């Protein structure tokens, strides 16, 4: 009887099938079905707006996904960042690479806030900036990089001055097993990575990442140094000694609403040229240790009211030996710590409005100073300290309201007040709107200010005949307004144009001093303005996975009426990714950089612009979806090009960068 009824039921349900179900199935496909579901997703009854969509945020944001990184064949973080509009990467004499943002760059990139999973990495209190450790960050464990150009102090506090770069790494659920990878390339470069992640039934989860990276560096020819040009004994002519080796260990442990995460890094490096305009040999050694430990908990008070709390402890130390003459060495070291906490309340007032408010406190300390000098790096003697032990307390309160008064209009208003024990308070507002004035066309406008707190070295450098600190320094301040249009004129195409204008005041820079040649002071201002154009087209159908993109930047940065030195007026990136099938794809990148001018008084010709061509091949999900293989060639045409050397090194020309270089990479998932 049951069988009969079931058959009857099937018959009723399928009664019309033979008549109607004739042609639809063959036209269906997963893509079409997902497109339909995506269209349905646009109508949401309740929406969480803590995480904003790139199209809706008021900030100028670029997101680089794990998939993008795989296609790029990136060897480190900077290989990823150099494709972002408005960002340029250049070599420095001491080895660390500079991140130029919107026409402004400094030796240690201290005006850029780099964060790891939302935690600021500016642990270097002596000099500020995070690039000493994070410029060659391995990318294998990165899930996403978010680059927000423009000031971010209203939310993130100090040092989110020109840009915020948030690196998000793979979590336990992203890993769900073991992933390993290895990469080998030119200059004896080798990278290894092992990650493990698991989610347990009792709501516990754990993710561990380990990276090892080692390279002999690009061995650029250095024809002369300040000694060789005087006929004194010298290592010049010679080659750069930028060997680099690092270990990274990252952990993310979670249980219920608690999370304990952090990262430890040990990095040892040589130097590209050296300090004091003297070419160094392999005895210059930079040794960095860095970690942070963060305990956080998310509290759900009500469905529309949550509170995020965290306690953190950051540590940074360096112990560096610098060769300042063939038989003269100095050794410097410090230990910096930052300990504090933050509480943030998130209140969803309605589907259209979210209020975020928080309080943070941190205590920063510098100590364990090392200052030695001598003719043999193994037997150095104590000398007067070059900086001072220092303690700073700071607290900040912030509030931000993200409100959609209309469904096509988002307004954001926020402000943050920070108070420092050593220089007082600073107030930074942020406001803007994103208005979809025509369907698929949005207009953005934002205004905000940001500050960078004086670093301990800028306040307290001492016993130095060349450069002294200044305890009376105030934070440098930037006020930026920007406006842009994001358009999706046809399916698959996203185009964006942004104009920005930044005014940096109370610039912290060395000026002529009384008891030394230079002393830090709040002096002068910089105006930086420019236009960023970018477009990306993602192919559909059989070419799904393929895309072409381009960005072009026109920038003009002026100090005292002069274009800033060593910064190009224009830069262009073209990229194309061609997916041959579900496994194989090829990636091509062309970077075109304009000439860079010199400092006032530097009589050298401009550094010529150049075009570089990179090519890569990627095979994904091979051998049962467990193996990814990539091979990339950088500077395929072996173009000889140079990054600008500062005016103080004008006798040696500029830094010759790498010729053609290869990098192969294999990744395994278990």
């Amino acid at each position: 009887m049951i069988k009969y009824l079931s058959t009857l039921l099937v018959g009723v349900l399928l009664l019309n099938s033979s008549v109607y179900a004739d042609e639809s199935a063959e036209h269906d496909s997963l893509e079409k079905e997902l497109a339909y579901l995506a269209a349905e997703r646009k109508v949401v009854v309740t929406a969480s707006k803590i995480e904003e969509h790139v199209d809706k945020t008021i900030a100028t944001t670029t997101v680089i996904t794990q998939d993008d990184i795989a296609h790029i064949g990136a060897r480190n973080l900077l290989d990823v960042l150099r494709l972002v509009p408005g960002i340029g990467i250049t070599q420095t004499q001491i080895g660390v690479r500079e991140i130029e943002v919107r026409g402004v760059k400094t030796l240690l990139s201290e005006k850029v806030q780099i964060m790891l999973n939302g935690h600021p990495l500016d642990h270097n209190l002596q000099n500020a900036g995070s690039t000493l450790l994070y410029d060659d960050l391995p990318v294998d464990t990165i899930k996403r990089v978010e680059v927000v150009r423009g000031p971010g102090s209203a939310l993130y506090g100090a040092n989110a001055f020109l840009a915020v770069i948030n690196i998000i790494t793979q979590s336990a659920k992203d890993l769900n097993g073991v992933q390993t990878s290895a990469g080998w390339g030119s200059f004896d470069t080798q990278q290894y990575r092992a990650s493990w992640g698991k989610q347990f039934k009792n709501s516990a989860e754990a993710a561990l990442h380990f990276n090892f990276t080692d390279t002999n560096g690009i061995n650029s020819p250095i024809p002369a140094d300040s000694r060789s040009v005087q006929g004194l004994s010298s290592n010049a002519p010679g080659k750069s000694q930028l060997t680099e080796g690092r270990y990274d260990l990252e952990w993310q442990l979670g249980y219920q609403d608690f999370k304990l995460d952090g990262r430890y890094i040990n990095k040892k490096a040589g130097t590209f040229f050296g300090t004091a305009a003297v070419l160094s040999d392999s005895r210059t050694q930079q040794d960095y240790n860095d970690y942070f430990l963060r305990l956080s908990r998310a509290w759900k008070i009500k469905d529309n009211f949550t509170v995020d709390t965290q306690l953190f402890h950051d540590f940074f130390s360096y112990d560096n030996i610098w060769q300042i003459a063939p038989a003269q060495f100095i050794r410097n070291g410090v230990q910096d710590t930052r300990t504090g906490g933050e509480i943030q309340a998130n209140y969803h007032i309605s589907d259209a409005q979210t209020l975020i408010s928080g309080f943070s406190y941190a205590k920063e300390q510098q100590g364990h100073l090392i200052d030695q000098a001598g003719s043999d790096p193994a037997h150095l003697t104590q000398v007067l300290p070059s900086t001072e032990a220092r303690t700073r307390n700071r607290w900040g309160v912030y509030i931000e309201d993200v409100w959609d008064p209309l469904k096509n209009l988002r307004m954001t208003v926020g402000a943050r007040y920070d108070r420092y024990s050593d220089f007082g308070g600073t107030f930074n507002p942020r406001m803007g709107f994103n208005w979809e004035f025509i369907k698929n066309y949005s207009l953005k406008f934002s205004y905000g200010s940001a500050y960078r707190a004086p670093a301990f070295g800028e306040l307290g450098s001492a016993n130095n005949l060349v450069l002294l600190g200044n305890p009376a320094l105030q934070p440098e301040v930037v006020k930026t307004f920007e406006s842009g249009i994001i358009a999706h004129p046809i399916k698959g195409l996203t185009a964006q144009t942004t104009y920005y204008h930044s005014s940096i005041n109370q610039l912290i820079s060395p000026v002529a001093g009384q008891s030394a040649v230079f002393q830090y002071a709040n002096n002068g201002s910089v105006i930086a303005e420019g236009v960023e154009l970018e477009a990306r087209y993602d192919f559909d159908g059989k070419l799904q996975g393929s895309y072409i993109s381009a960005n072009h930047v026109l920038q003009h940065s002026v100090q005292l009426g002069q274009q800033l030195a060593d910064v190009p007026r224009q830069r262009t990136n073209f990229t194309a990714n061609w997916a041959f099938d579900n496994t194989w794809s090829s990636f091509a990148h062309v970077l075109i950089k304009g000439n860079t001018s010199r400092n006032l008084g530097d009589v050298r010709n401009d550094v010529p612009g150049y075009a570089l061509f990179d090519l890569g091949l990627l095979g994904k999900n091979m051998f049962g979806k467990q193996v990814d293989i990539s091979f990339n060639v950088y500077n395929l045409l072996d173009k000889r090009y140079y990054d600008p050397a500062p005016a103080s090194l004008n006798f040696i020309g500029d830094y010759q960068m790498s010729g053609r270089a290869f990098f192969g990479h294999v990744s395994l998932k278990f």
Partner: protein
Amino acid sequence: MKPINFYNVFILLAVFFAGTGFAQSNKILIVNSEKTVFRYEKIATEFKKVLQQNAYSWTEFNLDDHANADADLKQLVQQENPALIYCIGTQAYSLARNVAPNKKLLFSAAINWRRLDVGVGTYGIANELSSAQEMSLLHYFFPTIKTIGLLYSDKFSREYVETIKKDALNSGINIINKSINDAQEISEVLNDLLPQIDMFWIISDPVVLSNKESVRQIFQAAQQQNKPVYAYSDVYIEQGAVLAISADIATIGRQSAGLAMMVDQGKVPAGTVQSPAGSTVTLNKCALDALKLQFNQDALDSVNKIVGCEQ
């Protein structure tokens, strides 16, 4: 006749004929959420075919053609005074409901219609098949299946899942449902869910099925744990679903047209929402054999399409 006079006459005639058209009481306004979406467009095409055969006139309004869709639709409704507004997709229905709350509305292709603000003059063709019938079928095809699991989002599918659970009880099947807010949670929730169930059911939830990666994660997890997957559409057969019962899209368009005409003629009780009339049953024999799943051989007669390993 001078050309200018000819044009004047032509325009007058055009206005006259257009005016008579506007005055027709049985004119239907079709509002399409996004004409580039295959499902919406297919439904619209089939709907218009039936209207044409029955000498109905219609006007079309595609939301993606209008920057200011609210105002434009409002103006069009005033201008056309349609007897009924046919809304394809949730976006179209939501807009029409706001703009013309007093008009008769007919919807289709709206995920989980029970979440919609449905008024007295609203009719519809559900997007999902009757879950009671699906339950009975699943029980008929797979007699040993006792527990079925599904992922859904509260935002889009809460009411639908509640209906499924009620219908499952009547069929003696236990449903274990897990809610997610973001596709990122899929792996985590599946790890917990799959060991507890005999079969996983993919429902048409836009959060769960956010992208290809979400689909891949679901099938990868199910495969790893040897769990069969039943899906609401045969597009998932290729991904590894063992069985799919799909509502036929073309039928929804024709069925909607039939319902629209009956509404126009006053032959349908207010608030009628019909289940889709046509469906296709697709069996993945390859996946079935691989899973060594017990299948009622008598049910093979009811299968429209059997997919083997070679396909």
